[in-house]
Structure formats: structure tokens, C-alpha cells
């Protein structure tokens, strides 16, 4: 049988590989142990060696292409293979897909045996008929329908064709015992006893042959008997879906029978329906994902929340607007954060190895969603800066973020993060801390709520602040004090307007 070389599985976690280099060309003679190709996964490049000798008759995947593990990448003809068998396998690959769309690259090939060349060339539709007299016998054979495939019964009855009823296999009692002990599938063995009965010696010979034919296994390879491999190839079955019961867990003929029977009964193939296409992630997104997992798993998070009376903020914004000064709630939050962190330097800190280290500057990161990406530009050195100074600095960064023009230093070294989902209608939430910071402020939307005020019911605007904290750096009482200070500042317009750090703690 000609062999399909498949994209090897070099790791349990390898799903696809890139064919970097073909070290042999179509038509080349290959010997077992020759380097056939180089395949890359992650940062590893493997020189993949042939495990059979023969001729590389067809390359199915070109250099630079990335394909799933198990995808056929080439066809190798063994010396014992007939033209018909090779042609049948090539027809399978030439019948559909990209390979068929490309013209046969005859000129690119190194000189091969002329007979072989002709024999291996798939007939092209609409190809002008050559003069019969010029055709060599091998070429004629190649054009003839492949007998091996013609002999197959129609698809519906293939199960019966390939799989005689295992209960009706003739075998001696000793052969049956041996087969059971060694997990041998008797339907795979041609018996040499009377009326084709399987003898114990047949079972032993079969086991020896299996041992001798074993190829070095690649990680994730499905072990299977040669017969099972051939049948699976013929029927286009994926062996990874079949559980093996043969020697060394190999998939055998009876396992395939069981699998096909289950499939014909309509056993659910749920895995196919459950999972669809994978969404490719950018490197940045992968990094963020890992960072969030690390943070949530290593930093013991806890959360405190408070409602802030937003009337003073609203009044301040309107007043400044009347004076032609544009200040947003985000600007006020940055200013309030700077003041609160100045009052609580122990909150502007990080956990390192086995101790708390204070940050020198107050660098406030503002989380911004840009398309599908989350970025957090950092307003640096916020201590002692006035509201409008901070407004200008943060607006410039946020604008840069929306234009995707942030330089690495624009989103590095944050010491505190503000995340605001108010514009999405969120009332309250609790974000994950960005390492190496110890706190994150989550800001909900401003909403009018009824409040009891001196025994009377009034409607006032409220914002809910959620503070996520790393318990290694601060405890609940400290978090409460810090958040209370944050709230007090937001409710005190004169503090937000104060220049420098002269507010009284």
C-alpha cells in the first residue's frame, strides 16, 4: 500500500504545524531515516525522518503552509506498490482541494523514471488524448479505472464487506484463549487450519508480525493494527475517534466495527456540534488573558463598595462648563484617586515576593475599550497636579488609545487603575486587579435614586464605586478607610479644584 505522510503530532498540545522546508522533492527516492521535511510548532523545528523507503510521489502541502495535525502532506510509494494502488491514492487527493487545482508540476520535478513519471501523473480532465501507440503499458494502467476501488461494494453494505461477523470466525479453543489473553482480534487473522480455522500458531505469528511492523510512535499517534489502519484509510475514518482494545491499546478491526455500528445507530457525535471555529487571539490579548488568570489566582481579591452622592460632581461639571472649562467625571475620578492615594500611600503599593513595597509615583491607569481590545493608558506622576492639568494629560492619552497609537511607555508602570463601565449602563461591578498593582476601582453609571434624607424622601444622583483589593497588601478596614476618603473627596468640589496636595486628610 502506498503511504500517506501526515502532519506529525509532536506534542499532546499541538493542533497544527507549519511545513517549513521540504528536504525532498517529488520524484525523489527516499530511504528510511532520510530527513523528509522540517515542521515547526511553537519555537521548535523538527527534521522529520521517513519511516519507510520508497519514492516521494506527491507533495500535498507546500512550504510555509500551516495545517492541522494528521492532515496528509505527501504520498510515498513503496517499492512493492502497484501503479493501480498509487493511482487510487493519488486520485483521492487529486479529486478535490487545492492540489487538484494546480497543474501537475512535471517540469519542477527532478528526472524520475519515465514509466513512473507517467504512472504517477493523475489524468487531467479535458487533457488531449495521447496517441495510443506512444503510451507505455504503465501509463495505460494508470489511466484505467483503479480496480481496487471498483471492487468495493456500495457504501451502505461496506460494513458487512469489511467486517464478517466476529462470532462466526472459525478458531481452535487454544487460539481463542490465546487471543483473549493477548487482546487479539480474531477477525484480522487468516487461519491456516482446516476450513480456514485460526490456530494458536496463527495468533502467535500474527503477534510477531505486529511487533515487527511497529513504527516509532509519535506523540498523540493512535496505535492501530495495520489492517485497521488500511480499513480506516479506505473508509475515511478518523482513528482518533475510536477506542482501541487490541494489543498495547491498538485499534483493531472489531473496534472499527463497533464504532461504525454505533455511528449507524445514530449515536450522537456531540463534540462536532458543540464546538465551532476557534477565535484567533492577538498576542496582546493572550498576554492580558494570562495576566488576568495569574492575578486572580495569586492575588487574594476582596471587594468593598460605596455609593457616592454625585450631586456635587454634577454641579461642579455644570459650573465649570458655564465658565467654558470642560471637565468630565473621568477627570474628577483621576483627581480624586490622586488625592486619596496621597493620603493613603500604603494603598499605592505592591506585593513582592514576601513583603509590601510602596510605589514612588502615583500613576493612574484608565481602562479604555478600543474595538475588541482593552487598553489602560497611564497618567503618570499625578501627585500635586491640578484637575485641569490631569484632564489635558488623560484626554491626550485616551485619544491616542482610540487611535491605537499608544507607545509601550504610555501603558506601563500604572500603580492604580480606574475602570468605568457606566457608559454601558452598568450599575456596579468589580474588576480584576492588574499586576503588580494592589487595587482597582470599578465605577458604575450615575443614576437617580430615591434616598432618605433627614426623614424625607428625595431623588439624588448616585454612583457606586467598587474597590478590588489584594488582601496581601491591605485589609478590609484599610480598604474601607481608603474608599471612604475617595467618596469624601468626590463629594467635596473644593478638594477636586484644589491645586497641589494641600488637602487635609
Amino acid at each position, binding site marked *: 500500500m502506498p503511504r500517506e505522510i501526515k502532519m506529525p503530532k*509532536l506534542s499532546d498540545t499541538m493542533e497544527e504545524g507549519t511545513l517549513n522546508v521540504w528536504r525532498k522533492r517529488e520524484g525523489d527516492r527516499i530511504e528510511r531515516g532520510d530527513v523528509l521535511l522540517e515542521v515547526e510548532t511553537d519555537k*521548535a523545528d*523538527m*527534521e522529520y525522518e521517513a519511516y519507510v523507503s520508497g519514492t516521494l510521489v506527491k507533495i500535498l502541502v507546500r512550504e510555509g503552509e500551516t495545517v492541522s495535525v494528521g492532515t496528509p502532506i505527501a504520498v510515498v510509494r513503496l517499492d512493492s506498490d502497484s501503479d493501480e494502488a498509487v493511482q487510487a491514492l493519488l486520485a483521492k487527493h487529486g479529486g478535490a482541494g487545492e492540489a487538484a487545482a494546480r497543474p501537475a508540476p512535471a517540469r519542477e520535478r527532478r528526472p524520475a523514471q519515465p514509466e513512473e513519471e507517467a504512472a504517477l501523473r493523475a489524468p487531467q480532465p479535458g487533457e488531449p488524448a495521447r496517441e495510443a501507440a506512444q503510451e507505455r503499458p504503465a501509463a495505460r494502467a494508470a489511466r484505467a479505472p483503479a480496480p481496487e476501488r471498483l471492487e468495493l461494494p456500495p457504501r451502505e453494505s461496506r460494513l458487512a464487506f469489511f467486517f464478517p461477523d466476529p462470532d462466526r470466525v472459525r478458531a481452535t479453543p487454544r487460539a481463542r484463549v490465546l487471543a483473549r489473553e493477548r487482546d487479539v482480534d480474531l477477525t484480522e487473522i487468516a487461519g491456516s487450519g482446516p476450513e480456514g480455522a485460526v490456530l494458536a500458531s496463527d495468533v502467535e505469528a500474527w503477534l510477531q508480525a505486529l511487533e515487527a511492523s511497529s513504527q516509532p510512535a509519535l506523540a498523540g499517534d493512535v496505535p492501530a493494527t495495520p489492517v485497521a489502519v488500511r480499513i480506516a484509510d479506505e473508509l475515511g475514518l478518523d482513528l482518533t475517534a475510536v477506542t482501541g482494545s487490541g494489543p498495547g491499546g491498538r485499534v483493531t478491526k472489531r473496534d472499527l466495527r463497533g464504532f461504525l455500528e454505533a455511528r449507524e445507530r445514530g449515536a450522537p457525535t456531540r463534540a462536532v456540534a458543540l464546538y465551532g471555529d476557534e477565535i484567533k487571539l492577538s498576542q496582546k490579548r*493572550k498576554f492580558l488573558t*494570562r495576566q488576568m488568570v*495569574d492575578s486572580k489566582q495569586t492575588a487574594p481579591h476582596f471587594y468593598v463598595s460605596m455609593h457616592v452622592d454625585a450631586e456635587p460632581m454634577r454641579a461642579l461639571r455644570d459650573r465649570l462648563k458655564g465658565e467654558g472649562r470642560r471637565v468630565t467625571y473621568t477627570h474628577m475620578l483621576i483627581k480624586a484617586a490622586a488625592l486619596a492615594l496621597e493620603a493613603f500611600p500604603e494603598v499605592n503599593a505592591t506585593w513582592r515576593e514576601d513583603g509590601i513595597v510602596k510605589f514612588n509615583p502615583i500613576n493612574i491607569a484608565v481602562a479604555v475599550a478600543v474595538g475588541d481590545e482593552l487598553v489602560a493608558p497611564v497618567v503618570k506622576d499625578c501627585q500635586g497636579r491640578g484637575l485641569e492639568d490631569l484632564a489635558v494629560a488623560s484626554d491626550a492619552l485616551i485619544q491616542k488609545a482610540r487611535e491605537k497609537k499608544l507607545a509601550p511607555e504610555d501603558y506601563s508602570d500604572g500603580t492604580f487603575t480606574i475602570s468605568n463601565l457606566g457608559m454601558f449602563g452598568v450599575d456596579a461591578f468589580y474588576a480584576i486587579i492588574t*499586576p503588580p498593582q494592589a487595587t482597582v476601582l470599578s465605577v458604575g453609571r450615575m443614576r437617580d435614586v430615591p434616598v432618605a434624607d433627614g426623614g424625607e424622601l428625595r431623588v439624588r444622583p448616585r454612583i457606586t464605586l467598587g474597590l478590588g483589593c489584594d488582601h496581601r497588601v491591605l485589609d478590609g478596614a484599610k480598604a474601607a478607610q481608603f474608599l471612604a476618603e475617595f467618596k469624601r473627596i468626590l463629594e467635596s468640589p473644593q478638594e477636586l479644584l484644589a491645586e497641589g496636595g494641600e488637602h487635609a486628610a
Partner: protein
Amino acid sequence: MPPELAVEWLGTVAYAEALERQRKCVEGVRTGAGGEILLLLEHPPVVTLGRSARPDHLLESRESLAARGVEVHAVGRGGDVTWHGPGQLVGYLVVDLQARGRPDVHRFLRDLEAGLVEAVGELGVAGGALPGMTGVFVAPSQPPRKLASIGVGLRGWVTCHGFALNVDPDLAGFDAIVPCGLRGVAMTSLARELGARAPRDLPARARDAVARAFVQRFA
């Protein structure tokens, strides 16, 4: 008998010479004539292009690099483009993954990362790995700061190439390239991360720490 891992410090070795040395080691392991080995060395300035190197990740022309005495080599390892030079500890690890049972390329890459993380940890730098970005980074850092690059080659299941750990190189060497094809990743070194805490004999300590971590993991 558990496999033995020999460690050899070769000093400064030209790139082509080191390739030849590795080739012999791989042949030795494959034929059984030689044992598994970790070669530790430094290279004179050289830029190498892995199998998936993109031309635009070489930011300086070959002529200009040659004029500065920097060689350029295309090599049979995985990965993109990288720079080697004085102050960088290069490790070439030749081991037979199949002989250890259940060979797995990704696990091998993770083992290399873990060995390096252990070694730099011993020197006082918290290192870590990032998914989808083979190599060792300072953890946690944003943007990621890269301490060591990894790229391996395999002949059958015998490994070659390995890693390059920045001990105290002139990081300007990396300016000629986009390291490993990762834009937005900053290269760093043990010396830079340790600052004033860096001991005088950092290169020797780094060699020892790496040798210890790898012997423990691979022998």
C-alpha cells in the same frame, strides 16, 4: 540507568564552529557514541534567522551589519530572528526526548522555560513564561520584558539549539532586529533587572545557576 547530562563551558565560540560542535553531539546521541550534553557558551555578535523568520524583522541591512562585524546566519531552529553577543549566556541542549518516554515538543519547551525561570530565580529575578510567547520574561511586567529567548531544533527526537539568556549584554545589539518577531516586547537582562543588587561575578553565577537547574531537570 538514568541519563547523565554533561555540562561544558566553552567560552566564546564563533557561530559556525558551535553549529558544527552541536551537529557532532547530535550524531553522538543518535548513534549512542556520545552522551547527552548542555553546551554553555557565548557568541561574538551574530544575528540568526530561525525557520519562520520574516525578512522585515531584520531592521538593519546585512551589509551594514557586516560592516559592524555582525554575522548573519539562517539556521534550522524554530522561531524568528534573534541576536547573540558578548554578555549573553547561550545554552545548546542535546538530549533524546524519546529515550525519556512520551516525547512531547511543547513539554520540552515548557521544561526549558521552567529551568531558566528556576535559574534566574536563584539569582534574584522573578521570571515567568507567557502563553503563546515561548521564552522567559520578567514577571509580572507590562509591557513584557524578555530575559531569555528559546528556539530548538530536533532531528528525530534528538534536540539541538536551546536558549539565550541575557546576563549583561549591550542590549543595543537587539536594535537591529525585532526580537523573535515580537513587536512591543522589550529585551532586558539580569544585570538591568538586578540594578545595584547585581553581584560582581554575575556571569559566573548565572552559568552555575543554569547548569544546576538543567542538570536537576534533565539528568
